[in-house]
């Protein structure tokens, strides 16, 4: 059976614009949650988000290129660029057909939708900009990455809300494993911090307001948790077939050993225990990894009352007594819930935790909750040898994706 390894990492987020600063900020427990700068948030009850700090597209793209790129596709290209550079890979002309891309996005070109509809409904214009469609389409990130790097193999986009990039990585993994390709750029990107999207989220009543202190707004697993914080950014990984990576002497971060997917088929927003349990078991089975071999779980950990208690039950059900021995953290406490990018951003954190033997903490943890009584690595990073780790994504809509990474030695 073909094996798949991770040979390149890229991340662009509120907690860092490259993998090293990103991971360092996570280890230091520094949240990227701040007052919203992208639009006037004063009419909203929620005025905070995890924005990429001081993002200016002029620093990354010439003006002509920006015309065709919604911000989510810009983020995707930046993170993909880092992953490619990090991997040191050079894809030959003949290999282009064996090189593909899968990117997830929950919202697609949300900012371009917002701007277009504002013109249409508020300004009453009668025609919209002709670049609106190429900017908003969910596959724009995938397509631009393909064009940038000449990737002509299998390529697609996933849209499963908060699990989008978990599913993207899982799909890319299976494409390599089952022989469709040898190299895949996989991850996700989202730029959902717009007036329209934030109004939509506000209405769901799952966001934390921060009460004047944005940095401490998101408190996963803590008894005083008040909800999630919307984030933005992108995470992209280069996945490679093992022999292909070895032949070129690539640095191997770890082996992507298994991916689990499941559907709750129960409720459009409320998570179930059964669905995530099956997804984790599927990932363990595929990787042929015993539950006791898992040392770290990067939790979905949104910081809502329901998610965190349900996820705790899920982990207990799968791992039994071992649930109390493994380290669990939610890095969303710092980089926010970056929607369709979040699974990939968190998987980058998981892979770096495994490679460096450092578990990033759950920031803003203040009080134990009887319903969340496991080890969430509160507030302080921890040195720990990690043999295998999981990254959980449980989406609105009940679509779950779990990624299993194993140490490569």
């Amino acid at each position, binding site marked *: 059976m073909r094996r798949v390894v991770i040979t390149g990492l890229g991340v662009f987020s509120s907690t860092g614009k490259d993998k090293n600063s990103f991971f360092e900020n996570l280890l230091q427990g520094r949240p990227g949650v701040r007052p919203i700068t992208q639009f006037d948030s004063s009419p909203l009850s929620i005025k905070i988000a995890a924005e990429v700090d001081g993002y200016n597209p002029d620093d990354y793209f*010439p*003006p*002509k290129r920006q*015309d*065709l790129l919604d911000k989510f596709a810009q983020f995707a290209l930046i993170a993909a660029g880092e992953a490619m550079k990090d991997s040191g890979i050079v894809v030959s002309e003949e290999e282009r057909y064996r090189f593909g891309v899968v990117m997830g996005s929950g919202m697609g070109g949300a900012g371009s939708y917002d701007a277009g509809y504002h013109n249409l409904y508020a300004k009453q214009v009668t*025609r919209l*900009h*002709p*670049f609106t469609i*190429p900017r908003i389409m969910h596959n724009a990130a995938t397509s631009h990455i393909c064009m940038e790097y000449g990737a002509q193999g299998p390529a697609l986009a996933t849209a499963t809300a908060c699990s989008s990039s978990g599913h993207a990585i899982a799909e890319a993994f299976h494409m390599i494993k089952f022989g469709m390709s040898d190299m895949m750029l996989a991850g996700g990107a989202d730029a959902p911090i717009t007036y329209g999207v934030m109004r939509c989220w506000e209405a769901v009543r799952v966001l934390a307001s921060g009460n004047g202190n944005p940095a401490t707004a998101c408190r996963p697993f803590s008894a005083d948790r008040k909800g999630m914080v919307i984030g933005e950014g992108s995470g992209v990984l280069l996945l490679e077939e093992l022999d292909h990576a070895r032949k070129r002497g690539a640095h191997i971060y770890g082996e992507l050993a298994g991916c689990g997917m499941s559907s709750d088929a129960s409720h459009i927003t409320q998570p179930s225990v059964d669905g995530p349990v099956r997804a984790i078991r599927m990932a363990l089975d595929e990787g042929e990894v015993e539950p006791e071999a898992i040392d770290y779980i990067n939790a979905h950990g949104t910081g809502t009352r329901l998610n965190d208690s349900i996820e705790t039950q899920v982990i207990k059900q799968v791992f039994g007594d071992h649930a109390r021995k493994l380290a669990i953290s939610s890095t969303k406490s710092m980089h926010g819930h970056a929607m369709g990018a979040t699974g990939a951003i968190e998987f980058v954190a998981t892979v770096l935790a495994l490679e460096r033997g450092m578990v990033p903490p759950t920031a803003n943890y203040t009080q134990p909750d009887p319903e969340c009584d496991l080890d969430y690595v509160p507030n302080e990073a921890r040195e720990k040898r990690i043999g295998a780790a999981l990254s959980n994504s449980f989406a609105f809509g009940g679509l779950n994706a779990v990624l299993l990474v194993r140490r490569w030695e």
Partner: protein
Amino acid sequence: MNVGEKVVEIIAREQHLDPGDVSIDATFEELGIDSLDGVNILFALEEEFKIDIPDTVAQNMKSVRQVVDSLNRVLEGKDISDLAAMAKGSGPAASN
């Protein structure tokens, strides 16, 4: 500013080119304007001149001078059906 100068200004702006590099005799191909760029320029022209440019006429705009001539005729309220006839047989402005 006459129509010709305005067209050059708009094409230069939308293509992020120096207006001095946009000759009235240049073809879209020479300026690196592809089908999607062409649609974008049409949009900008329609916005600027507050007009509608029919698809059949738009398809015939493959050079700066053709744009200027077509626009002049539209703005003067002249019959432009001969331009449409000339465009017959050419492909759509944007694929997919």
